C-alpha cells in the first residue's frame, strides 16, 4: 500500500507474488518449445502418370510440370509472397497468384507483384519403362 513502510513481511509477500509470475512465464517456455517442434517429414515423391507433349504442362496440387525441348521441369505452386496456390494462365504463359496478383514465368522467375523471390524448382525424373506406366517422378 502507498506510504506503508517496507517491512520484511511486505517484502516477502511481494517477492512471492513476483516469483509466481516468473514461474508462470517460465512455464510458457516448455509450452512453446512443445508447440514449435516439427517432426521431420520424409521427402515426398509424386508421380505424374502421363507423358506430357513438348510445350505442354501438367497441373498438380503442389507443383506444375512443364515439358520443353530440353526436357521436363517442375515449379512449386506456392506463391513466395504469402503462400497462396498459383494457377497457370496458359494464354500468357505465366503463373498467377489469385490472392495478390504476383506473376511468375514458366521457369518460376518472378515477373511482377508483391512477391520478391522466384519459385522453388523440383527435381524431375522421366519414367519411360515401368510396371505402373510411363510418366514423371517429382521429388518435393
Amino acid at each position: 500500500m502507498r506510504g506503508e513502510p517496507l517491512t520484511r513481511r511486505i517484502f516477502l509477500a511481494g517477492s512471492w507474488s513476483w516469483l509466481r509470475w516468473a514461474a508462470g512465464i517460465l512455464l510458457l517456455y516448455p509450452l512453446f518449445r512443445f508447440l514449435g517442434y516439427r517432426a521431420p517429414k520424409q521427402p515426398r515423391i509424386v508421380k505424374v502418370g502421363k507423358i506430357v507433349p513438348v510445350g505442354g504442362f501438367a497441373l498438380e496440387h503442389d507443383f506444375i510440370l512443364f515439358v520443353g525441348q530440353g526436357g521436363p521441369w517442375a515449379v512449386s505452386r506456392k506463391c513466395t509472397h504469402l503462400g497462396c496456390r498459383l494457377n497457370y494462365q496458359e494464354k500468357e504463359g505465366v503463373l498467377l497468384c489469385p490472392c495478390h496478383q504476383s506473376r511468375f514465368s514458366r521457369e518460376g522467375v518472378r515477373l511482377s507483384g508483391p512477391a520478391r523471390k522466384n519459385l522453388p524448382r523440383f527435381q524431375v525424373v522421366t519414367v519411360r519403362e515401368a510396371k505402373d506406366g510411363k510418366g514423371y517422378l517429382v521429388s518435393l
Partner: protein
Amino acid sequence: MSVSKAMNIRALIIETKWGGLSLVSLYLSVLSGMVVALQYDPSTPYFSASSLDLLTPFGQFFRACHFYSSQLFFLFSLGHLAAVILAKAEQQLRFGKWLLLLGSVPAALLLLFTGYVLRADATGEAAGVIAENILLSIPWLGEPLNSLLFTIEAEGMKRVYANHLLGLGLVWGLCCWEHLRRYRVGFAQHRLLLFATVGISLCLAAPMEPSRLGLFHIQGPWFMLGLQELLRYLQPFWAGVIFPLAVVVALVWVGKENPLRRRALLFVASWLVVYFCLSVLAVLTC
C-alpha cells in the same frame, strides 16, 4: 445531413439492444456449430465441408445456420462496441476491464476467421496460408504465435480446429465473463432474429468456392478485403500486423479521458474510412 437527423441515428444506435442480439446470435452459432462439428473431419477439411452441403441430410442448413449466425454475432458485437463508445459508457468502466472487454473483439474476429479457414475451399485455403505467413513475418513472436494458432503448412487444420472449437471460444469467454454475468438474454426476447436467421439458412447456402483450374482471383472474407488490398502494396508485417494493431491500440486509448479519448476516436474513424476505401478498391479491382 441535418443535426437532428444525425442525433436520431446516434440515439437509434445507442438504444438498439446490440448486446442481446449479439448474444442470441452467438447461442445459435454455438448450437449449430456443435451439430456441424459432429460431421466435420479436420483431416479432410474440404471434402468434409463440401460433403455437408452435398451429401449429409440437412447438412447445408446446419452449415448455413452456423455461418450466418456467426456473421451476425460479429456484426452485432461491433454494433454493441459502437453504441458503447457513442454513449461514452466505457468511461464508467475501470481501464483494466475495458482492456479485457476489448480483447474479446480480436478473439471474435479470429473465431470468425478460423471458420472461413476450416472450410478449406479456395478462399479458406488461401486465407489460412496468408494468415500463417503474416504471423511468421513478426520477429521473435511470429513462430510461437503461429504454432499456437495455425501451423497449417505442417499440421493441416488440426490446430485451427482446436482453436475454433475451444481455444478462441475460451479466450472470448474469459474476456466477457464478468460482463455477461450481469446480463441474461433469452431466445424468447429475440424471436424475430431467430426466425430470420433460420429462414435465411433454409433458403441460402453458406458460401463455398471450390479450388479449380483457371481461378485467377480469390476474394477474401468481407472483413479481410481491405487487408488483402493493402498486402498488394505493403510488406506483410506492416500491412498484416502493424496496420490492424494500430486500430486495436487506438480503441484501448478510447477508454481514457479526454483529450486522449477524442484523439483516439479520431484515429479510429480515419482508420475505418481508409479500410473502407481499401475494401471498395479490392472489390472494384477483382
